[in-house]
């Protein structure tokens, strides 16, 4: 927790965190935050420009773009986050077991991962959706089923490297239990790695889910989703490009905020990077003083 306080000193991280928090809160309380009903059709307001009632204008069916963006946070961000959390948790458990115990456990779990990873991701997702039926839940389930193996692979190799280190050998030698070693030595050290790979895949997962919605396999028509909004705006891409701007920019801003935050988290969690950063700040301060001194002279 002490280390997390360092995040506060990083302005970009604070900005990213506030963007993510505001978006999340807006998504959870969408009915209270959104100015209009996102599914209410006003044919007379088709492609209307921004007005006080509809701050970001209206889409091809005259629906409020802002309200649709806000309602779209739920599937586009919150449910993707749930899917990510699930697949990272399964992947972490499998990765930790395989990387720490090695031997037969490792061989068995990794063969399972190999089997899953040997199918092309999109095709398997399509197949799972085909079995479970079209719908957003099937899409999320398909994502979790396909992604965990990838996380397990990466987390395993990171855990393996830490499990061989001398401090783990020492802990074993003085009689610490496997559980204690995992909790004290492996999880905290592997956590920055996990945070970085999961946040960087968060961005791509948002894009992929949008992609499936674009194909009509995710969220169904009247409901709002960023990828689908982008798709709907595609028809008027050249005559009214501003309609792509709203969902497009939202996706870009949210994904970048997540990536910046993950970088900041990595720095904050790693004592090595943390202190070198402090030193750097110290140096910068020192050189600033020098420059000022020169200015005076």
């Amino acid at each position, binding site marked *: 927790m002490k280390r997390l306080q360092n995040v506060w000193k990083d302005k970009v991280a604070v900005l990213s965190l506030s963007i993510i928090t505001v978006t999340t809160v807006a998504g959870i309380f969408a009915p209270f935050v959104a100015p209009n009903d996102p599914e209410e059709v006003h044919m007379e307001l088709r492609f209307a420009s921004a007005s006080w009632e509809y701050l970001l204008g209206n889409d091809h069916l005259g629906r409020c773009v802002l309200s649709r963006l806000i309602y779209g946070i739920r599937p586009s961000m919150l449910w993707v986050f749930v899917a990510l959390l699930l697949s990272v948790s399964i992947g972490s458990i499998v990765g930790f077991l395989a990387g720490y115990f090695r031997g*037969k456990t490792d*061989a068995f779990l990794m063969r399972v991962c190999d089997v899953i990873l040997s199918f092309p991701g999109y095709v398997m997702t399509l197949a799972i959706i085909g079995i479970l039926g079209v719908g957003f839940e099937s899409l999320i389930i398909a994502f979790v089923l396909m992604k965990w193996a990838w996380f397990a692979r990466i987390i395993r190799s990171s855990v393996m490297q830490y499990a061989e*280190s*001398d*401090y783990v*050998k*020492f*802990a*074993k*030698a*003085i*009689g*610490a*239990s496997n559980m204690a070693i995992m909790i*004290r*030595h492996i999880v*905290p*050290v592997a956590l920055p790695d996990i945070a970085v790979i999961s946040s960087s895949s968060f961005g791509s997962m948002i894009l992929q889910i949008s992609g499936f919605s674009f194909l009509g396999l995710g969220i169904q028509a009247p409901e709002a989703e960023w990828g689908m909004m982008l798709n709907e705006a595609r028809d008027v891409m050249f005559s009214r490009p501003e309609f792509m701007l709203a969902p497009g920019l939202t996706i870009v801003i949210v994904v970048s905020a997540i990536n910046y935050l993950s970088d900041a988290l990595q720095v904050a969690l*790693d*004592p*090595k990077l943390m*202190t070198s950063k402090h030193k750097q700040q110290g140096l910068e301060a020192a050189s600033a003083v020098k420059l000022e001194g020169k200015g005076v002279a």
Partner: protein
Amino acid sequence: MLLSVESVEKSYRKGGLFSKEREHVLKNISFECKLGECLGIIGESGSGKSTLGRLLLGIEKPDRGSILFEGKKVEDRKVRTGNLSAVFQDYTSSINPFYTVEEAILEPLQMKRKAREEALSEIDHLLYQVGLDPSYRKKYPHELSGGEVQRVCIARAVSTEPKCILFDEAISSLDGSVQMQVLELLKNLRKRYDMGYIFITHDIQAAAYICDRIMVLRNGEIEEIVEVEQLKDVQSTYTKKLLQMIIA
């Protein structure tokens, strides 16, 4: 008898999981180590010294044979807690990078169910013993030099006053003068705490300086065990050759 090792064998699988071929790393190893004794284990690179060390620490199990610590199986971690400790070669990974010096030394103390306050108060003294001042408590391992890390590891190893400490090439990565300081330190600590050492090294001089007995390992077999005083008149030709290389 503190440690008694009886006809221990260890082999590792060569190649993949399904390959039958095995590499015999240790063959029929038997020896004993008395309470408070310092036993040196020397041998060429790849002779199986570190493997034997891991078996003695109970980190890995032997394929055959038994290793008893005070008559109980060393694989049982309850037997080891507080009685056995270790210092390893690689100072870049011997302390958890997320731990301060204080937290690192606290780990074995808390394993022994010592109260936190009591354990914290001991740290200054332990650091003093290894020649570091209390200002090191809040430092992270990457802020220390190799020699300082090894000192912290030694402080961590002696903290529970174990009956035996295993050093696996613990001083090999340090430069000459620091090696000498650490050896001196180990000698003094041994007198003070009445501990036994198992000192794995490929440096015969260091072994001769600190050990009571020296075991020579060659291709996973014990070539010879000699008292340090009788190092001059060793039996086997291999040991003679090893010694000659040093003298030359």
